[in-house]
């Protein structure tokens, strides 16, 4: 196979950010702030260019055949456990991972560029870029993982980078609390992921032995295949063996249990209900971080994981249904909350949750036989990454100018910040799903998939949320950019520097054109992809619903605040309930503080303090007391020592004498 240079050296893609992480972190950061930003950004740009080149080569090579196989151009053995059980690190190349690599490197490069302006003059400038490089490396390692072990390691690495960046302003107690919350919640979810991996790995290893010498169809190089490889776990013959393992308790099959546990990890990272609580708080980090990590890349890792293991999820239908309904519920739930929040970044965070719900439900409704939802989900991931990163970066630009996160402190910014206004409007229209912007195409495909696979409830939820998305996005658009300035900061606001505007413009272009990528012919799974145009029977109602949402937002928020207060009074308690995010945080606090802390942690702490520590103290105390008693013998009277000596010498002499005279 005539591969390009970059496919042969594909390790460069995650390798360059890693190298740059060390160089910037250890060598450049202590000496020059400016150089740190430039070096870190150029490393990501180089990586992005390599990804584009690899994508070009890959499609050049395989476009003649029409099928896009999984290739693993580069692997290195990492852990060798025994004869036929090793873990490799490598780079897996297929359309899905390529898509994610393109998204990650593009958004990351633009966010790096933007951050040079946004973080200008910040104390932790070098530290910030170091962390950002670490994150980019981890995320690329995650999407390129050919086996579930590498994915898990990188999964935790992105968790750490996210933790470090949320807590970037570590002098602020709220940022510290938010970073801890994010870490604990996602780590708790990762426990499920790890258990799932263990189940899959154990039975995978048993099944792996059965395939010794038996050819698995469609895998090019079976000699390097390992039980943890996605190629192995996703293989139909392997999955058939899995389903022969029989049922566990309560009619749950082994595969379902494993996949639901893995989905728990995915739900933690992608902030699905009820593990969504960390994402809104994660907005304490710098805004470009929110754009990169908590909108475009890291939070879609969960979606990517489900997509990566999609054949296994599909083999266990129940697990896929769980994915679909959790996704649909989160989608609706977060959109509801998003309508009532006043912090611009929090609205965007809830909107991210809602859109992630879309991606999850799209995966959940598809099957191996009709995989439109799979394509739609990744399509939405692709478009969402651009318009949501753009929204966050615009929000960052606005916050940079107004010095406040509250939308009610803003207003009238359209004239003062024309570029930000224009790009924000493009992103808002894109997320609202109006043609011809990118969100329209991907959302249409998701809705078509939901209806096409007989999930009318999920379809209706999707339709409703499409309207709500348009409503809450245009709500913050009108409040922020229309009307008159409501605070000192908003009056004095001025446009951001060019280094921040260039990424906005590039992302705006991407948010417009990303929908025209022929995703259906590029990414598919299972059956050959059905060629799918715009389904106008679904698209027209969806656009109408979105227009209704925009109209409602215009009626309420474009200038007449008394209408809002009248509506708030009308809804009363319901509004308060939604505004407080359905009191989920309070419920968690109650559960942890009042139930877990009081009934589990306190007794354990008591046991630790009194029994465990008591045992340790007891041994110390008894040794000391014994020593004190012995020290009474230490009189300092040399003659009493002599007496002891003589007496015992006599005693042992007698003893010896008796022993030897007896025999």
């Amino acid at each position, binding site marked *: 196979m005539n591969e390009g240079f970059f496919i042969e050296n594909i390790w460069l893609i995650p390798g360059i950010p890693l190298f740059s992480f060390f160089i910037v972190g250890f060598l450049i950061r202590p000496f020059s702030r400016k150089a740190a930003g430039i070096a870190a950004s150029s490393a990501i740009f180089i990586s992005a260019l390599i990804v584009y080149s690899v994508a070009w080569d890959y499609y050049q090579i395989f476009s003649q055949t029409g099928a896009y196989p999984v290739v693993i151009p580069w692997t290195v053995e990492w852990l060798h456990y025994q004869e036929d059980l090793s873990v490799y690190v490598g780079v897996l190349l297929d359309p899905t991972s390529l898509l994610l690599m393109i998204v990650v490197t593009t958004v990351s490069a633009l966010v790096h560029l933007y951050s040079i302006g946004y973080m200008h003059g910040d104390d932790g400038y070098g530290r910030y870029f170091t962390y950002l490089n670490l994150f980019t490396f981890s995320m690329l390692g995650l999407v390129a993982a050919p086996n579930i072990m590498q994915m898990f390691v990188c999964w935790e690495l992105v968790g750490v980078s996210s933790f470090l960046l949320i807590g970037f302003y570590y002098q602020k107690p709220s940022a510290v609390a938010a970073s801890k919350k994010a870490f604990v919640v996602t780590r708790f979810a990762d426990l499920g992921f790890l258990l799932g991996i263990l189940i899959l790995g154990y039975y995978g290893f048993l099944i792996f032995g059965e395939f010794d010498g038996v050819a698995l169809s469609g895998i090019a190089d079976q000699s390097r295949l390992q039980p943890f490889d996605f190629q192995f776990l996703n293989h139909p013959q392997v999955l058939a063996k899995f389903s022969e393992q029989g049922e566990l308790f309560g009619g749950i099959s082994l595969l379902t249990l494993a996949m639901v546990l893995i989905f728990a990890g995915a739900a933690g990272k992608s902030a699905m209900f009820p593990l969504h609580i960390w994402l809104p708080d994660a907005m304490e980090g710098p805004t470009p971080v929110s754009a990169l990590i908590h909108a475009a890349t890291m939070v879609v890792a969960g979606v990517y994981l489900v997509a990566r293991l999609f054949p296994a999820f599909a083999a266990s239908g129940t697990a896929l249904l769980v994915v679909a309904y959790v996704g649909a519920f989160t989608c609706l739930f977060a959109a509801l909350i998003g309508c009532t929040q006043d912090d611009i970044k929090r609205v965007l965070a809830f909107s991210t949750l809602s859109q992630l719900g879309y991606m999850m439900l799209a995966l959940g409704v598809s099957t191996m036989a009709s995989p439109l939802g799979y394509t739609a989900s990744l399509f939405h991931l692709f478009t969402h990454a651009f318009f949501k990163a753009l929204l966050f970066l615009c929000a960052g630009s606005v916050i940079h100018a107004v010095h406040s996160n509250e939308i009610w402190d803003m207003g009238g910014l359209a004239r003062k910040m024309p570029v930000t206004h224009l790009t924000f409007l493009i992103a808002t229209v894109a997320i609202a799903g109006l043609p011809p912007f990118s969100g329209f195409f991907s959302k249409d495909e998701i809705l078509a998939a939901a209806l096409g696979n007989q999930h009318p409830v999920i379809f209706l939820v999707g339709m409703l949320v499409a309207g709500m998305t348009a409503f809450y996005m245009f709500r913050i658009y009108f409040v922020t950019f229309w009307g008159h300035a409501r605070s000192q900061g908003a009056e004095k606001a001025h446009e951001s520097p060019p280094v921040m505007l260039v990424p906005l413009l590039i992302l705006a272009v991407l948010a417009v054109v990303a929908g025209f990528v022929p995703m259906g012919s590029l990414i598919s799974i299972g059956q050959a992809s059905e060629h799918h145009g715009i389904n106008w029977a679904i698209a027209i109602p969806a656009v109408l619903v979105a227009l209704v949402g925009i109209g409602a937002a215009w009626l309420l928020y474009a200038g007449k605040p008394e209408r809002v207060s009248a509506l708030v009074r009308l809804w009363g308690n319901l509004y308060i309930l939604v505004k407080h995010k359905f009191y989920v945080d309070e419920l968690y606090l109650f559960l942890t503080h009042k139930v877990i802390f009081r009934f589990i942690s306190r007794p354990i702490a008591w046991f630790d303090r009194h029994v465990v520590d008591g045992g340790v103290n007891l041994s110390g105390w008894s040794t000391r007391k014994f020593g004190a008693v*012995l020290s*009474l013998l230490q*009189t300092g*009277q040399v003659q009493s020592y002599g*007496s002891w000596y*003589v007496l015992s010498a006599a005693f042992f002499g007698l003893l010896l004498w008796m022993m030897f005279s007896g025999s």
Partner: protein
Amino acid sequence: MMEFLSGISPGIEHWLILSALLFSIGIYGVLVRKNAVGVLLSAELMLNAGILNFVIFNYFITPLIVDGELMALFLIAVAAAEAVVGMAIFVAIYKHKKTVDVTRLDTLKG
């Protein structure tokens, strides 16, 4: 009287009993004397009991060679040296503490 005594030639047991008595008196002195000089004197008694044993065994067991007697002479010299060192220590202690009462020299008390 003299005839009576000269008629009995003391055997090894008698000499050993004498040596043991000397040793025991020495131990007693070491353990109960309060004056450090008295303790040193008693220790000398114990040493002399040992020296006596060398002579006794040499006389009764190997009368033809004089190794034991030589060792006894050597030990007497050693004891003299030891007594000098001991007395020097006592002088130093006395300068420091104004006493050589061993019951009051208890700085090693635990």
